């Protein structure tokens, strides 16, 4: 990569680096070592693919595409099964039924609910929560706009059911 391209890559990357952290956190929430590994792999894939980025889509959309591709294929090509993942992050105390949940606990519960979804559904809800529109979600996942909207309804319902059952 030329020095000029590398500088523009670093600027764009740092403006959107939260995307990679968010994707890694969604898919590898409980395994810090695996999360770091995928974070680095995503950086490498972004760096390798950047010269081909022509700006047809927003940089953030392109970054989601690379990050999700890396995360999903990493899980699926991994020889480790999810059951083998060690819990390197403690699970916060779950409140009593009468206790009011703090925002932190609610966020933790939401992450738990998202963790129960399939890899593709995780990608769709993540993109939706990150304010990507239906067309952008469709271009990242390869689904049609209609499929995205139908699946989002199903995903939201599944999340609500999980959250209501655990509150």
């Amino acid at each position, binding site marked *: 990569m030329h020095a000029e391209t*590398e500088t523009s890559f*670093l600027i764009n*990357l*740092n403006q959107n*680096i*939260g995307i990679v*952290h*968010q994707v890694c956190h969604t898919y590898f929430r409980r395994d810090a070592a695996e999360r770091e590994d995928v974070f*680095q*792999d995503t*950086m*490498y*894939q972004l*760096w*390798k*693919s950047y010269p*081909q*980025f*022509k700006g*047809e889509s927003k940089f953030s959309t*392109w970054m989601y*595409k*690379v990050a*999700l*591709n890396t995360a*999903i*294929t990493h*899980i*699926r*090509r*991994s*020889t480790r*099964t999810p059951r083998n993942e060690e819990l390197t992050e403690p699970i916060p105390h779950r409140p009593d039924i009468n206790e009011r*949940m703090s*925002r*932190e606990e*609610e*966020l933790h*519960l*939401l992450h738990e609910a998202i963790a129960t979804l*399939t*890899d*593709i*559904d995780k*990608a769709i809800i993540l993109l939706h*929560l990150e304010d990507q529109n239906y067309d952008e979600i469709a*271009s*990242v*996942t*390869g*689904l*049609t706009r209609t*499929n995205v909207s*139908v*699946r989002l309804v199903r995903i*939201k319902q599944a999340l*609500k059911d999980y*959250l*209501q059952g655990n*509150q």
Partner: protein
Amino acid sequence: MATSNEIGDVWKEGKACVASPAPLSAKDLQGIISSRVRKELKTVSQFVWAAIVYQIILYSFLAHTFIRHWGDMRIMLLCLAGAAFYVPLTVALLRRVGTLYRRPSEAPGSTVPDVFHKVEGEYARLADFFQFKKRMDWIGVPVSCAIIVLVTFTLFVKGGVEGNPLAGLAVFALWVGMSLTAIHAENKKRFISPLRNLEQVLDDLKNS
């Protein structure tokens, strides 16, 4: 937290509470790139090693026997025939390994595929290589076992295979059985499970 809006609010508030990740410097990035290149090379070399280790054993055995029994035309021809049969298989295998590990993004002018096409591509490449490897194992394992048994019996057993057909057959069957068991375990870890996993994602994408 029961409505979609509430879910969105919790997500946004959660993000706001988390400190922004530290930006990467050019030095950090270079560090990551170098370590990933090393890791990628290590993965490829481990795979190449695992794929050709059996053939290396065979070549070493044939070369050793060829030199040690220099002048014994029968042994020398047997060793040469074994090596001549195996060289094209090794070349074909190495070429396929190269294709398996050449990432699509390395092709000039290629763009980043969406998740569906990425998973589909990964599945196709892995399935294609696995198909090739299975074919090669079915041909290569019995042939290499036959060569080893033939040469070993000629060298160390009085009368050779011709004089001890049942023992020769038993050693051959045992050798083939052991090789196929080891290959099956390796295939399960490196191909069958990852292919099944990729298939699940593809099914999920197709059944929208």
